[in-house]
């Protein structure tokens, strides 16, 4: 798309969407939201970028290599946290009893493994949305 207004607005608004997505992911244990919704926001921001600037420029920002790594990293983080619980407390995905610091309830650094898992889910959801969109759009261009 060759629209100056659209390009300028997108350039301004994409960082704000992404920061808001990160905020929602990191505050998943404090306020409504979490990995799924925050990851969807980050994914949507890059879909907007792809729609406005084209697939080629978007592939520079989010290449296939990054997609492969981040897509696997989300699940690996989740499973590793689960295995830590399995080793230290005897059952998969144990939270406080496995030694994750509980912190003071209501502060950002609390709730043990929940923020870590949220980050994993966020990475996974964001990379899934972007990669699906890129794969489908790329097919049509050629």
């Amino acid at each position, binding site marked *: 798309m060759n629209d100056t207004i659209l390009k300028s607005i997108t350039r301004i608004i994409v960082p704000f969407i992404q920061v808001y997505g990160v905020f929602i992911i990191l505050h*998943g244990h404090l306020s409504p939201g*979490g990995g799924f919704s925050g990851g969807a926001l980050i994914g949507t921001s890059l879909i907007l970028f792809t729609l406005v600037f084209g697939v080629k420029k978007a592939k520079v920002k989010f290449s296939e290599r990054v997609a492969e790594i981040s897509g696997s990293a989300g699940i690996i983080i989740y499973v590793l946290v689960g295995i830590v619980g399995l080793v230290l407390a005897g059952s998969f*995905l144990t939270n406080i009893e496995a030694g994750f610091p509980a912190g003071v309830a209501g502060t950002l650094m609390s709730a043990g493994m*929940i923020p870590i898992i949220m980050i994993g889910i966020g990475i*996974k959801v964001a990379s899934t949305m972007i990669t699906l969109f890129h794969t489908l759009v790329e097919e049509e261009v050629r």
Partner: protein
Amino acid sequence: MKKIIIWILFIALFLILSIGIFDMPTSPTLDAPSYNETIHYYLENGVNETGAINIVTAVITDYRGFDTLGETIVLFAAIVAVSSVLRIPSKKNEEEAQKHE
């Protein structure tokens, strides 16, 4: 004959499902099946056991963490399926594939 049997089966299924609908609670009452001791357990012990003040997050990532792992793996499976079918191989990979042929 075949059509009549099919219709009878459909009507029987419809009646069975209708009975199920009439058994559902019409308004949130105290004897609804979903209103049991689990709710009170989560509300009373959730903050102490997980440290998260958002009870929804506490349930989906701590009490039901294995469920959410399954959801994440569904996303992974979706992306593997789509990219194995639809992804256009780069030129380098194409040449290598032709060499093997």
